[in-house]
């Protein structure tokens, strides 16, 4: 159940009264956000704020993702995650605009921008909420397959909430608008292919931003899941150093317990 709307409708210029409230509006009161969008009261500036928030949060999640592989992947993932999200939305925006227009939902260009930026913002806020978890597993596990499934699960939760917000804003929602279901399927297809296009995210590609080999997303996923014989760059053996030779504090006590 979504929380009830608690904020007032906006001022005359069609923007949200306080720009810093845009993120709180999307996260805490999705119904108020939906009302604003339906009244065409979520202006371009507010949409840009939501989009900027989405980019920043996605970048933070990217950093947490890049921790697993380390090296160049650290900053590359911080660039790639927002790029994947924004490019997927940009490619699917025209079809959402046209399909909603054709199906009789009174949604204009500004409202479509508001819906998409709001959904992207909510998705990214959920991702950033999971970033510490992704970081913890990134530094403590060496299993690529597990990390792939973890990130798919986290992104799945984020995208599901983003799409739920979309269904809340659009009149008659998913149940009364079958075109939204089709659009969501197209969006997921594009996102999956975009992710594959900008791969690798969980491996250091030795300074190259993306792998030039083109693959379908399902091919890449199946390859990644069965690719267990060779370890990812992040899983290389720890370098031998002086400190590595020293006994770890407490090891003896643990050995004594066993």
């Amino acid at each position: 159940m979504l929380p009830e709307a608690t904020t007032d409708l906006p001022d005359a210029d069609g923007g949200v009264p306080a720009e810093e409230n845009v993120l709180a509006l999307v996260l805490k009161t999705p119904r108020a956000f939906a009302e604003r969008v339906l009244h065409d009261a979520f202006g371009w500036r507010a949409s840009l704020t939501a989009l900027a928030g989405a980019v920043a949060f996605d970048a933070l999640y990217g950093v947490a993702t890049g921790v697993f592989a380390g090296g160049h992947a650290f900053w590359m993932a911080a660039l790639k995650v927002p790029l994947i999200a924004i490019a997927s939305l940009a490619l699917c925006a025209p079809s959402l605009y046209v399909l909603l227009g054709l199906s009789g939902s009174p949604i204009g260009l500004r409202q479509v921008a508001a819906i998409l930026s709001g959904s992207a913002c909510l998705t990214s806020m959920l991702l950033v909420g999971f970033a510490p978890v992704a970081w913890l597993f990134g530094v403590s596990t060496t299993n690529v397959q597990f990390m792939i499934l973890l990130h798919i699960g986290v992104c799945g939760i984020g995208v599901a909430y983003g799409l739920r917000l979309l269904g809340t804003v659009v009149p008659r929602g998913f149940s009364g608008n079958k075109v939204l279901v089709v659009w969501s399927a197209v969006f997921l297809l594009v996102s999956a292919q975009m992710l594959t296009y900008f791969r690798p995210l969980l491996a250091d590609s030795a300074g190259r931003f993306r792998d030039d080999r083109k693959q379908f997303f399902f091919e890449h996923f199946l390859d990644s899941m069965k690719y267990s014989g060779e370890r990812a760059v992040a899983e290389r053996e720890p370098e031998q150093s002086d400190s590595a030779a020293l006994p770890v504090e407490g090891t003896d006590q643990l050995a004594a317990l066993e």
Partner: protein
Amino acid sequence: METMQAQRRFWHSLPESLPHAIGLDRQRGEAFFEQVASRRGLLPSIGLAAAVVILGSATYGFTFGLWRSSLLAAYVAIKLPALLVITTSLVMLLNWIVAQLTASGLGFTQVAALTYRAMATASLVLASLAPVSAFMAVACPPPQPNDDLAHNVLLLIHVAFVACAGVYGNSIVLRGMRRLCRPGTPIVRLYFAWLASNVIVGCQLAWILRPFLGSPNYPVAFLRSDALDGNFFEFVFITIVWKRLLGL
């Protein structure tokens, strides 16, 4: 002067809703059905719908052929609008005769207006999917001889897009029939008769106008040298079902 004002109105309404601006949304659809019922001013409506069909399907067609080569993209940008316009025009007479047989009371221009509107809606949906289609062409594995996976997956994606757009477009015909046909008309039978004529003619015309996606095993061409040999249904039922699937 009036044209300029109309153009200005069009561009002003664009940010609100493109489908509304060109009269293809549901709200204007009701007004359109009333216009079709009154049989007044249908030729400009048909002209506008034909323009949307040509522009929309040309945009999508370009991205359809882009995977194989930019030359094929240019070819398909011509062939896809031709396919839709010729199919719609060829089945018009048959659709009108069937409409008379079922005593629907629909006139020829009414049948034309309904059919072209459905095609225009489908073309607009296809045009809106053009960015996705272009991305798929760029991001998917490139054409390689003797490697049919990329070709087949992309073909499946395009068939799904075109089918969804077609189903959505034709739902307008069904809505229009419910509003316009005389009481007692077997609407569902009439609708499926129209749909069947569209599918049969459209598939064969698509067969003649192939290639669209462009198999990597054949050279790029506007039309195949064997364009008029065989037919779509012979290919599907004999080559695919009979020989490949059943091994007979």
